């Protein structure tokens, strides 16, 4: 069941009504049943996997807590849990990739093997809920959270439907207490949730889905295109992936607010970042903080020598790339971002070269908290035109890096880079050929320009004012805010593709 399907349009009001109509003690049950219903609407069989992961992690956490004095036992239980949960993920997501890669590797030494492959469909959202359960078990192991004793409440926490299939990857200390808490209906929270959902739908339906038509046209048959068509498709994908994923996160957060639950913010105007480091503090925050807490810092973070620090960064980004998909293109995408951050560190670390200074900053690296925004720059951070130039440079870098993310093979990605500026005989000709080859009319371009500008203004205001536009509009007079809400609603109705609900890109992860 997709957020942008009519089924969800029926499902949500029913669950909302039941949730608030029933007494508090039954609400976890409503969340649990509705979440499993939501998940089973994709494929009933895969409920077994989420149930397996939930049971394993639930029991592991209880056992870890029981053996809190026995470090070896705790470690053993943790290891078994990690192997079990990651094992499921490996089999369903990575087995074929590793098997094929291994075969190719051996063929380099003239050893011919036949790759063993499994014909399994990738269960929706498996990477998201697996990471959420792992975070829970590790937190219990570290003693930063208590094991949940109520299995139903725990299962509701793992499967909470707004964020089940594409995040945000919630932390135990944020979501679990909220599921257990007694909520009174909060008008402000619910209306904000509705507005957030509307904005999310706008991004998904009016931008991501429409841009996807052109992106798919080019990237599904990349060798038929050259020149600016490839640049344009890459730019469109840059906007599409952001609108698709942040749109989902907005809908998820808005939806959760209707139930009195606040999910963590997952995106903060990432394309207005002035560096790659800042980009990762604004893009998919729940994942980057997950990697910070459970991979980067355990590897040593930056509390070590320069080489080791850079290696830690690279390892974290490569794993992050692999998390997105079982393909070398994702690994390269992660590595490219890792390399960029290492290069940034080399050029910006002069003042902080002392190991003890770096130690004190360890926790800030890769976190959203070190982002101060446009108006709150530290003295050594860029302002005005310099900031704008750095934003443009970061955006351009991210845009070209997305080629690896979207291309189906490395060869395709290389073709895109090689041919982006092929056939350049003058700007007008270069641009005109692109419009024609991807079949885009000026009318489409006008409408895209309007919608993309709206998105840019929204994100820019969020960076400038440190508040999102929704909060700012909510504070205006009725005669100002209602026309805005209606215009947004109307825009979604008029400009969203009808009759076909398209999946969110991040569902495949």
């Amino acid at each position, binding site marked *: 069941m997709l957020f942008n399907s009519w089924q969800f349009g029926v499902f949500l009001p029913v669950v909302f009504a039941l949730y608030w109509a029933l007494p508090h003690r039954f609400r976890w049950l409503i969340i649990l049943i509705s979440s499993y219903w939501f998940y089973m609407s994709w494929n009933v069989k895969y409920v077994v996997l989420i149930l397996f992961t939930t049971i394993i992690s639930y029991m592991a956490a209880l056992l870890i807590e029981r053996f809190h004095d026995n470090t070896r036992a705790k470690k053993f239980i943790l290891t078994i849990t990690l192997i079990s949960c990651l094992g499921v993920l490996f089999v369903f997501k990575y087995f074929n990739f590793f098997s094929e890669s291994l075969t190719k590797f051996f063929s380099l030494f003239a050893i011919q093997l036949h790759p063993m492959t499994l014909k399994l469909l990738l269960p929706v959202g498996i990477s998201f809920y697996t990471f959420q359960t792992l975070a829970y078990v590790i937190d219990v192991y570290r003693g930063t959270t208590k094991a949940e004793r109520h299995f139903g409440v725990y299962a509701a926490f793992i499967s909470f439907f707004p964020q089940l299939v594409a995040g945000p990857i919630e932390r135990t200390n944020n979501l679990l207490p909220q599921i257990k808490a007694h909520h009174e209906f909060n*008008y402000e929270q*619910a209306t904000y949730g509705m507005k957030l959902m509307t904005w999310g739908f706008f991004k998904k339906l009016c931008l991501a889905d429409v841009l996807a038509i052109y992106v798919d046209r080019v990237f599904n*048959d990349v060798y038929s295109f050259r020149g600016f068509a490839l640049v344009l498709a890459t730019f469109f994908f840059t906007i599409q992936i952001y609108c698709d994923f942040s749109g989902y996160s907005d809908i998820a957060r808005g939806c959760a607010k209707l139930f009195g639950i606040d999910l963590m913010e997952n995106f903060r105007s990432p394309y207005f970042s002035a560096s790659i480091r800042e980009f990762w503090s604004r893009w998919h925050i729940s994942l980057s903080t997950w990697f910070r807490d459970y991979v980067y810092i355990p590897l040593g973070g930056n509390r070590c020598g320069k080489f080791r620090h850079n290696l830690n960064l690279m390892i974290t980004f490569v794993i992050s790339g692999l998390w997105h998909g079982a393909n070398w293109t994702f690994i390269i995408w992660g590595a490219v971002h890792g390399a960029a951050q290492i290069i940034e560190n080399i050029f910006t670390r002069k003042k902080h070269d002392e190991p003890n200074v770096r130690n004190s900053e360890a926790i800030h690296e890769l976190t959203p908290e070190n982002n101060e925004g446009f108006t709150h720059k530290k003295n050594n951070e860029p302002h005005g035109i310099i900031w704008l130039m750095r934003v443009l440079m970061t955006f351009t870098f991210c845009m070209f890096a997305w080629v690896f993310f979207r291309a189906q093979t490395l060869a395709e990605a290389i073709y895109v880079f090689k041919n982006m500026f092929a056939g350049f005989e003058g700007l007008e000709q270069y641009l005109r050929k692109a419009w024609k080859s991807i079949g885009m009319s000026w009318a489409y371009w006008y*409408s895209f320009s309007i919608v993309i500008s709206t998105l840019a203004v929204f994100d820019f205001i969020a960076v400038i004012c440190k508040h999102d536009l929704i909060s700012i509009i909510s504070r205006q007079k009725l005669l100002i805010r209602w026309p805005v809400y209606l215009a947004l609603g109307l825009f979604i*109705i*008029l400009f*969203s593709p*009808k*009759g*076909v609900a398209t999946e969110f890109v991040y569902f495949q992860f």
Partner: protein
Amino acid sequence: MKKFLLKTLIYVSILAIITAGLNIAYIDKFYIMNFGTMGTQRNNSALIKNVPDNIQVCNFGTSHSFYGFNYEDAEKKYTCFNFALPAQSMLYDYNILQNYRDKIQDGAVAFIALSYFSFFGKPEVQEVDFASRNRRYYKFLAKELIINYDAITNFYVKYLPALTFSNVIRFMNFAKSIFEPDQDVWFKTADVDDSEVRYKGHVANKLDNNGRRLYNKESIEALYNLIALCKELGATPILITTPYLHEYVDAVKRNDPKFFDDFYGIINEVTAKTGIKYYDYSSDERYTNNHEFFFNTDHLNRNGARQFTKDIMREAAGL
């Protein structure tokens, strides 16, 4: 909670009222015109409302036929109709003829245009843009003639036409064409530089994963059915291939030297089995070097279509 529900209800109601108003205005003014490529073919609207009776000359096929036939001159003497639509499959050619079978006069001439890729590619339903393309047939075909008929799509297309993105964009294109009529592609002349890109774009979804050309058996079968139906209705089916610019034909030869053997092989088999005639204008020297007759390397423009229609009616149909 009450306040929240009340405000949500008010919001949804206002949106519904505005949407309904827009939809009514849209149906009244633009729905009929808003079909196919705006400003190009008068038959767009006619397909929905005004398919004439006693059709004497008609044509089927894809965009090559849609843009390639211009009955401006012929209409003075005959009742003509252009049933072609961009990216139309043979199966839909057949279904359209089924739908309008009572409108075809005994002894009529039916030009069945065969584009280079008519016989190749995946089955229609497996194509990426099938859903969006299929939607247009809900406007005028009987329910049973629509492939993968779906009631929700039918509801959108028939009762909420203003709400589909493509329609809004077409409306914008239409509005633009009123103020800038020369922007309409049909009135332009060809830019030959894009022959390679256009060829590759056309061939792209006609290949399997190993780069081999896929034969569309469904399409070949539909062609036989279409020919049989024409005969059953007393019409004379004539197979044709519309003119292409030589740059495009060269691109095909360059990229796929075996292509023409396969393409003409299928046509020879069809003509041998059915006994009908085939006229190939794809490399006809009157057109293939004349850029003034095309708006791109494989589609005739208004003037080209006018000349081609005149020629083919005289040469192939003896009219």
